[in-house]
């Protein structure tokens, strides 16, 4: 079933090379459309190309790409302008404008395509390759075209790198320092349409969106720098293109485009879940750690308030219900927190000899920790009331969250600002 020798066939090399070049173009411009939050406009352009191709064919009667590509380019670009016009001149939002343009252009394209097919015009077969792509049938001519387009795109982005960067991150600023943003946007959308028009021949209308979006969205998780992001996007899409194109030859009757997309999506989903720093797993763990820390600090603080109400601070023993009276904590949560605090040596547990009840007390370190949190809480309240003049009954909730994140450096600055106030914990 698996026959690797087929990969040495020159036709196969054309396909792999073609897919590779097309992916490089798509992911480079895709990075900019992604950053400008216009990814789905790429989807609309991909669909809007179909009627352009059909019209060009009807007018000229040939499948010569020199006629078809300008047609495709025209309707593709028109679709971007129409989405902008609809959102600017009516209350229709961008998502609906994209859907309208996408589905109507595509519907018209399908209608024209079927009209052509039923009309018996010569030489019409193969036009529908644009619907699903014809990656497996790429020729050396296609590879040359893809290569030239890729070079053109990269050269244009190289030349206007600074302008495009500013346009993507801060359009208003770009405008204010005298960049012709409208012209730049026109150029960038032209490049996007160009990448889509070529890419669509390999993977088809529907899947084109993936080649634009997925590499950029994946790369975004690994870096904050634009040039690194473009580099990673190109890398990911190249690897996907090579794997996807190879699979379709190694396993018989497998389509190329969908496999490229599957590899891209796999990279994207794995990144979303496992990427260090920004991935779902890492953020979930971080969140859990914060919640645990907050719970523990809150328990220590409550213990500390309790000890302040009794005169003999060293020998204060409490039941769990005493804590719950002060602070609404679920029993399971409280138990978990207490166990962790006992392990860390902040709380000690004893059993009352008479009543056989479990009693808890703060250790010396626990007392210190509880005092620290209560101190930070009060410090923040003071800062809000004294320095920012916020009403005293509005500051408690804010202090409840801030007390867990104030660092010693911030604490010192707050104390300096407030003139090293004497802080007595407020007993609740």
């Amino acid at each position: 079933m698996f026959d690797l020798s087929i990969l040495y066939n020159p036709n196969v090399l054309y396909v792999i090379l073609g897919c590779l070049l097309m992916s490089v173009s798509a992911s480079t411009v895709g990075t900019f459309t992604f950053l400008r939050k216009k990814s789905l406009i790429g989807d609309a352009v991909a669909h809007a190309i179909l009627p352009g191709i059909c019209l060009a064919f009807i007018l000229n009667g040939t499948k010569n790409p020199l006629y078809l590509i300008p047609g495709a380019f025209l309707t593709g670009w028109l679709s971007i302008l129409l989405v902008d016009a609809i959102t600017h001149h009516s209350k229709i939002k961008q998502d609906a404008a994209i859907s309208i343009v996408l589905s109507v252009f595509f519907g018209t394209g399908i209608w024209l395509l079927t009209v052509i097919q039923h009309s018996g015009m010569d030489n019409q077969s193969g036009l529908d390759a644009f619907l699903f792509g014809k990656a497996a049938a790429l020729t050396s001519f296609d590879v040359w075209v893809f290569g030239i387009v890729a070079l053109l795109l990269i050269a244009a982005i190289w030349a206007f790198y600074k302008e495009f960067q500013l346009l993507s991150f801060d359009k208003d600023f770009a405008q204010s320092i005298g960049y012709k943003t409208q012209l730049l946007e026109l150029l960038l959308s032209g490049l996007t349409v160009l990448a889509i028009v070529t890419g669509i021949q390999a993977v088809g209308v529907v899947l084109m969106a993936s080649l634009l979006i997925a590499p950029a969205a994946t790369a975004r998780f690994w870096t904050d720098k634009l040039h690194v992001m473009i580099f990673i996007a190109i890398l990911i899409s190249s690897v996907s293109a090579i794997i996807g194109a190879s699979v379709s030859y190694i396993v018989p009757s497998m389509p190329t485009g969908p496999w490229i997309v599957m590899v891209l999506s796999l990279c994207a989903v794995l990144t979303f879940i496992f990427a260090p720093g920004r991935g779902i797993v890492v953020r979930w763990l971080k969140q859990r750690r914060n919640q645990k820390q907050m719970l523990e600090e809150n328990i220590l603080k409550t213990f500390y308030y309790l000890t302040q109400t009794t005169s003999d601070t060293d020998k204060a023993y409490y039941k769990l219900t005493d804590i719950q009276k002060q602070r609404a904590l679920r029993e399971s949560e409280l138990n978990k927190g207490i166990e962790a605090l006992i392990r860390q040596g902040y709380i000690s547990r004893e059993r009352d000899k008479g009543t056989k009840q479990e009693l808890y007390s703060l250790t010396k370190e626990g007392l210190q920790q509880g005092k620290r949190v209560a101190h930070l809480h009060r410090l923040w309240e003071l800062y809000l009331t004294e320095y920012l003049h916020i009403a005293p009954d509005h500051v408690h909730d804010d202090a409840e969250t801030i007390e867990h994140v104030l660092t010693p450096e911030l604490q010192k600055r707050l104390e300096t600002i407030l003139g090293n106030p004497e802080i007595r914990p407020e007993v609740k």
Partner: protein
Amino acid sequence: MDAFWIILTGILVVASSSILGCFLVLRKMTMVGDAISHAVLPGIVLAYLFAGERNSILMIIGASGIGLLTTFLIEFFHKKGNVQEDASIGITFTSFFALGVILISYFAENVDLDQDCVLYGEIAYVSLDPLLIGDIEYGPKAIWLLSFVFLMVLAVIIPGYRSLSLTTFDPNYAQAIGISVTLWHYVLMSLVSLTTVASFESVGAILVVAFLTVPAATAYLLTEKLKSMILLSILFGVLASIIGYYLADFSNGSIAGAMATASGILFGIVFVGKRLYDRYHRLTTVSQN
């Protein structure tokens, strides 16, 4: 008779989808509807493999399940993963669609589905597949299926109208008075999935998007009230079906494609007309002042 069945099919698809489309347009979620319509493909293929025929109940349920999964994944990557919403939509639906195409290629011998049919359906053959009970024909199967879906949509939207409109216009207030925003989100999305799957064979995965969005958006241009928006969108949808049918008949092209074109033309006329009317109206009020 064929013309009657075809137009009726178009009208049934358009009626269900324009009602749902109004909510999608107002919730700014039309692209999620678009994503669902593509993503149900693997569900349709798998269900078809198991059931061995089209239009089975299993197919509808299986594929609608994938539609809901799509909605969930888009939300999940967006909310939990901090992925930009447009990217989350784009990646999710292309993955499912690619999976569907791969499944079709892999099971090509067992699955009588082709890719063209997925993209633009074949409404013209609706009347070739009648519902048979015993030896008696009870009209096209698709009509029964689409009527069932339309009734389902009505059965949910009419009693749930207040909750749906509240969660659409003011989700915070709805939440405050105890209406679950999440629940109604998923109810709406289930209906969208159901409609998409039931319509896919007659109008195809992509053209159902035209019916979900275009009539609703056309109506949205003309009115502020939800009820009149729904009624107007159905009217525009029905008009588009009828005009589209005769356009296709005249030009010998795809009926579904022509219907989408017709809905686009209607949108264009209303859009331009509204602009001209507004400009004229403004001029006259200015000159009166």
